[in-house]
């Protein structure tokens, strides 16, 4: 997890393995990495990842959690909360995480989900 800031790219579709060596190292840890990754969801500092938008560290952490768990919902893992759909693409997620408290809500939802998936 300490090397999350070294990740330069993420797999671009669900089910496709990570190709960045640092992302591979983290996802190899599987659920062991999950609590630390969930804590980082609120980290808004910039990462090195740019796939249509500049990922914050928190966005990279979320992407890795999604990879590890293949959860039924996104970005809230159990699908019980849906983010507003204005664009129908990644811009909806960006608009959502910019709202007050959004990242914290997301973090808490993932922490609960991680507990249920032990």
């Amino acid at each position, binding site marked *: 997890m300490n090397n999350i800031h070294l990740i*330069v790219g993420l797999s671009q579709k669900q089910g496709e393995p990570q190709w960045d060596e640092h992302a591979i190292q983290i996802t190899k840890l599987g659920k062991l990495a999950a609590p630390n990754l969930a804590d980082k969801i609120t980290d808004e500092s910039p990462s090195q990842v740019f796939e249509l938008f500049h990922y914050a560290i928190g966005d990279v952490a979320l992407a890795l959690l999604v990879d590890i768990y293949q959860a039924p919902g996104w970005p809230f893992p159990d699908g019980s909360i849906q983010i507003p759909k204005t664009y129908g693409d990644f811009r909806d997620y960006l608009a959502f995480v910019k709202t007050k408290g959004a990242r914290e809500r997301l973090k808490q939802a993932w922490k609960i989900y991680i507990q249920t998936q032990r």
Partner: protein
Amino acid sequence: MTITHISTVAGMVSAVSVGNVVYLAYFGHSGPTRGGPGALFIGETASPGSNLTIRGNTNDRPATDIPANKFRTDAQVRLFGCRGGYGTDPIAQQMADQLRIPVYGYTNSGGSLFTTDSTLGHGGRAVRQIDINTPPPANATNVWLIPINGSPTFSRF
């Protein structure tokens, strides 16, 4: 000019099977695979035939599926996606080997962003922070997809 939405390699094959193709532009996801060759990630979800690559996994189809005889000898292909020409055995090279025509892909190592700046879109300058901070508005026309790092390097394979 025909614009076709595709989700599979079969969709691409069907689209070019009209024949006499002079220009094929792909807009979508692409890039390296884990420890392996590059790919076009045509379909958004993991499903059979959704990736164009020589890799050989369940959801992959090779560039040899694309009928070379449907392209004119003076045709070209341009891949507007991340890292289409980057890394070991990039997808641009795989397609060039099959189609025997020029295939252009970005060799920049970074992901991509959208821009309405024509100078940047045509590789006339390098990306600046303001380009990253200022995505195009939803109703923008004349939008380019370019690599985030450095000057867009559209290399020929």
